[in-house]
């Protein structure tokens, strides 16, 4: 029983990290219609940055914040390449973000080498109802919950957040009232970078990150985002938690080798079921 609870809590932590990656994907897709393949890259950039900054003796807190800001900058640059040029179709933008992800490989290897790096996080563990859980896992859950609450407030309550939603809701109308849709797209990319960066900073102490970790991260994030049809944050969060728990349980009960297949298989099934329900027209125009 306590083993089950441990797996559940660890799974929620893994799921929370996936949810942060996925929320970045959703924010960018909602505003620009682009699926950002470089979303995992933002987490990698932030993770590697923290590990370097902490290694240089920069204190905790400062290192993490700086790393997240670096990821936001990476997001902005990705956005400039992907949607900065007017008339780029969403599928072309996807291929451009793919290119950005590969370009990041080159930069990351030059700066950090090709070996995995880790960073110290919160030490120690807590016992909850007989289940031991690492403090860092609790931190991941807490920060993800806070991030989602802030996102909901930002999009639901602030003027800028509503303007971003407006771009997603009706880009033409957004232009009619004078909103610069392109600039909002760049903002969405920066926000996506920020969210990916938070995920990277939180995950690096749990499992070492190397330049090519982005594939696992983006695939998991995309799988979670697919639950919410790439537009609905709350369903995405639920999908991510489900995915995290399912993967951790699979690993905990001895099917660890098939963790990735579980996630990918789930993603394929969800996408195919969704495609069966949606008419082709809405997909082509989307």
């Amino acid at each position, binding site marked *: 029983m306590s083993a089950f609870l441990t797996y559940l809590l660890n799974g929620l932590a893994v799921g929370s990290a996936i949810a942060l990656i996925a929320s970045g994907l959703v924010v960018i897709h909602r505003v620009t219609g682009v699926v950002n393949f470089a979303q995992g890259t933002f987490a990698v950039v932030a993770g590697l940055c923290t590990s370097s900054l902490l290694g240089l003796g920069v204190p905790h807190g400062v290192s993490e914040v700086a790393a997240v800001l670096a990821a936001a900058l990476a997001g902005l640059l990705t956005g400039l390449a992907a949607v900065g040029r007017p008339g780029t179709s969403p599928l072309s933008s996807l291929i451009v973000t793919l290119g950005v992800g590969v370009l990041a490989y080159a930069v990351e290897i030059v700066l950090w080498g090709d070996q995995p790096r880790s960073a110290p996080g919160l030490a120690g563990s807590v016992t909850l109802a007989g289940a031991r859980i690492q403090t860092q896992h609790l931190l991941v859950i807490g920060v993800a919950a806070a991030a989602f609450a802030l996102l909901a407030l930002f999009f639901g309550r602030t*003027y800028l957040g*509503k*303007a971003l*939603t*407006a771009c*997603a*809701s*009706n880009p*033409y*109308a*957004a*232009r*009619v*009232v*004078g*909103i610069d849709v392109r600039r909002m797209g760049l903002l969405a990319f920066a926000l996506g970078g920020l969210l990916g960066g938070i995920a990277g900073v939180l995950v690096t102490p749990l499992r070492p990150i190397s330049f090519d970790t982005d594939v696992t991260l983006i695939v998991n994030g995309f799988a979670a985002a697919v639950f919410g049809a790439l537009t609905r944050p709350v369903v995405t969060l639920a999908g991510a938690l489900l995915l995290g728990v399912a993967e951790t349980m699979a690993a905990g009960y001895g099917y660890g080798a098939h963790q990735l297949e579980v996630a990918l298989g789930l993603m394929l099934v969800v996408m195919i079921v969704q495609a069966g329900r949606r008419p082709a027209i809405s997909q082509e125009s989307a």
Partner: protein
Amino acid sequence: MIDVQDLVVSYGTATALEHVTLTVGKGEMVALLGPNGAGKSTLANTLAGLIRPASGTVRVGGRLALIPEGRQLFPDLTVADNLALGGWRSGQRDPSPVYELLPRLAELASRRAGVLSGGEQQMVAFGRAMMSRPDALVVDELSLGLAPAVTADLAAHLAELNRTQGLTVLLIEQNARLAFELCRRAYVLESGRVVTGGDSAELAGDPRVASAYLGGAIT
């Protein structure tokens, strides 16, 4: 207030507007008539700065707001949010002046725009345009798909704003009866060209205009 000289707009190789010249004076209400595909909405979008002309000049003295064809609201947002975003350019985020003008909108404030009736949506679009405190208003197809009573109500508001606040209006319409009733002057756009223009009463008397726009016109 609105001064268009020799305007040419093209999409790729197709020309949508060919050497269009028209003016709307300050405080004037002018109509632009024309069939589907004449280039009316292209002109509206060009005036709003959403389409770049191939040649010619567009001069607008003051702030211009567009009520686009088909309302074009933000369906996922509330009426209040739709109005607030209308103030993006002017910085006016408080919709209460618009509620004074159109009290019905205050009742609808918390409803999602996407679930409203056509007339209510057109009213939101009207209110949203007014949020930018415009000096000139371009209305693209005010009456399209609306019941006559609803159209008349909106038209009355428009006329009142023109009278009391000196709002300049370019009314783009297929409904010629409505256009001639509201505006003293009108232009007729066909296949991207201004084919005729002048006093509404005279145009209404022109047999060609009468047969094309008044004969079978649906109110």
